[in-house]
């Protein structure tokens, strides 16, 4: 595929791997966090770990928007979906995320009209085509997907669609990163910055990472060469004693972000005082609700929901895994109460999360290390 294959060239990848090796100091162990779930996916898909020297370790970050939705919010979604006449729409990978007793797929099997959409605009189309039904969109995602939800709501308002509403679970990336960085036991050397989020918010919001916490961050694209190049840039900063925000993804990310997207977000959304993250607990000002001007479209106001907080089991240590303080197998519930079939924390919910990957492939990893 043109414009894609160029960024997947194996030979260039090997050349970058050699350069990466040259930037590392023997005897030093490097931990680099990729913030975004999209990066985790690419790393897994292309086997990027394999190309890195053994002392460069990638730590999966909190940036999978599906996995961080807490059980209580999933329960609320299911409660809305169960209302007579409701068509409940959401992105595909949300369907399997466990609530306290079931998933949206289970609710669908029990008769709820749950439909997968590829875009909030698809949900809006369904609302137009079914004027006698209530159509609800379960909005999730970081700043990457928030603008499309915002535009959809603007359109719904201008069309006067009264049977459309939205459960807003949009979250923002900076507060959880700050929470991680605040931790005194943090063991991370640098960050691969979330390229898609940055197309919207720009590079500036990440200046606090080098500024306040002394860690380099490189905003990265999602192709394998992008990720290797970003790791190289992080290691180079470390070796040269620099610490700044660099932009590897210049072909897409403008320094100031997308002002129009930010504008429409500011109109449609307002900050929630706090929001719960699966495995990470409450983080203040880390999520968005619909603004007062759009309250008519707020499904949380339109439908009654249990709105009960379902606590993550106390033993869940996703936070420590994410900070790189403990390995998955050191968590108290790993492999016993928390398994891929019955996941508790965010690291186990996503098949690419650190815990799920270790659960499924740990045995294989052990063999690889033994070679």
């Amino acid at each position: 595929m043109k414009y894609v294959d160029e960024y997947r060239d194996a030979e260039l990848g090997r050349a970058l791997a050699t350069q990466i090796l040259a930037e590392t100091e023997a005897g030093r162990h490097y931990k680099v966090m990729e913030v975004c779930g999209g990066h985790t996916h690419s790393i897994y898909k292309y086997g990027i770990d394999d190309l890195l020297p053994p002392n460069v370790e990638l730590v999966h970050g909190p940036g999978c928007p599906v996995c961080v939705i807490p059980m209580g919010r999933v329960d609320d979604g299911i409660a809305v979906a169960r209302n007579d006449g409701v068509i409940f729409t959401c992105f595909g990978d949300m369907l399997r995320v466990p609530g306290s007793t079931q998933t949206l797929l289970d609710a669908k099997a029990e008769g709820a009209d749950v439909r997968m959409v590829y875009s909030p605009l698809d949900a809006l189309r369904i609302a137009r085509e079914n004027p006698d039904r209530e159509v609800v969109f379960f909005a999730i995602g970081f700043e990457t997907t928030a603008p499309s939800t915002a535009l959809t709501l603007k359109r719904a308002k201008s069309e006067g669609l009264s049977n459309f509403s939205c459960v807003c679970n949009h979250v923002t990336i900076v507060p959880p990163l700050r929470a991680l960085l605040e931790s005194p036991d943090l063991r991370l050397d640098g960050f691969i910055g979330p390229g898609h989020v940055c197309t919207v918010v720009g590079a500036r919001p990440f200046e606090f990472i080098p500024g306040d916490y002394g860690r380099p961050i490189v905003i990265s694209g999602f192709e394998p060469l992008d990720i290797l190049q970003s790791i190289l840039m992080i290691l180079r900063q470390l070796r040269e004693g620099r610490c700044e925000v660099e932009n590897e993804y210049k072909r897409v990310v403008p320094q100031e972000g997308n002002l129009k997207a930010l504008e429409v977000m500011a109109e449609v959304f307002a900050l929630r005082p706090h929001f719960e993250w699966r495995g990470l607990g409450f983080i203040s000002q880390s999520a968005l609700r619909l603004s007062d001007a759009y309250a008519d479209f707020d499904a949380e106001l339109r439908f009654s929901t249990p709105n009960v907080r379902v606590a993550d089991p106390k033993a869940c240590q996703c936070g420590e895994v994410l900070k790189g303080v403990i390995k998955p197998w050191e968590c108290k519930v790993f492999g016993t109460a928390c398994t891929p079939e019955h996941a508790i924390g965010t690291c186990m919910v996503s098949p690419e999360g650190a815990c799920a990957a270790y659960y499924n492939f740990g045995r294989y990893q052990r063999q690889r290390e033994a070679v």
Partner: protein
Amino acid sequence: MSEAAPAPPRTSREERVLQIIETARAKRARFRDERITLAHGAGGKATQTLIEGLLVPAFAKTGDGVLAQLADAGSIQAGGTSIAMTSDSFVVKPLRFPGGSIGELAVNGTVNDLAMAGARPQALTVSMILEEGLESEILKREVEAIASAATAAGVEIVGGDTKVVERGAADQMYLCTTGIGVIDSRARLSTDGIKPGDRVLVSGPIGEHGTAIMLARNQFDLDAEIDSDTQSLWPAVDALLDATGEQLHCLRDATRGGVASVLNELARSSGVSIVVNEAQVPVSPIVAAAAELLGIDPMYVANEGRLVAFVSPEYAEAALQALRRTPGSEHAAEIGEVRAEPPGMVMVATAFGGRRVMDQLVGDPLPRIC
């Protein structure tokens, strides 16, 4: 900043945790779900739990009987002849799609299950479940499709049944088939036959049927010319048996769940590891592009006219040439090989130069948001 530290040796606690996981995995699948979800029909882990946790224990008389092998077709001895027998059902939506329709699919799907057992397909029965109100024109068209696909595959339709259900109790029409074939004397096919060193072949570009169906459903506003690969695979099997005889160790048609699911199932049941060279896997540009856009891996997308063959290494080239001479399998390729370790796992050497595990699907391949 983190301290300089070589990777620590595995501690006894880590060993214990890994042991707990191994024990949990080795347990027989137990079917404990309260309700059937679409995941139970998707060909991944949930389907496996349903089959191994409910159906096999209920139906298999002994642990090593025919059913316990979980092949596409079962075999029985009748009057000194080895007979392969299979049944299948078809609920595809839409009924017609580029490159085929439900009628054609029903014949080819059944014939292919027989062919994977090394059996020359002989006869089929076809039952129809029709929804009240179905237009007769649609029915006529599908009956014709069944007839012509049967002629093309060299099988006779020898019986059937029709039922009509109330509007809403079925979606237009469902087809259920039974197929019978005579196991070819050249064939020595079984999952036990797969050995480390065996080469893995696919008979053509993968993911075309599933992609054609996804696009025909019109959910994505994508326009692309891609036809389903539905076809009878007996000619390909016939050619393979001719070229390799008993050096052909195992065959599977990569239907629901795609090539990845077939490989996972076989790696588990044969206790071997399978390594796939991603760069060698034939994928047409349209399928690759659609999969890229939708966030789906073509290895998990359904095929209806592609087989996966395991052949001893010395015969791999002959097998490949035999496939490539067979109409419909001209673009066959060798995609990987069988190894002893790590057992039960499918590994991918990525085109980019890394490695990853190609796991079983948990449910339907759901598109990713991120």
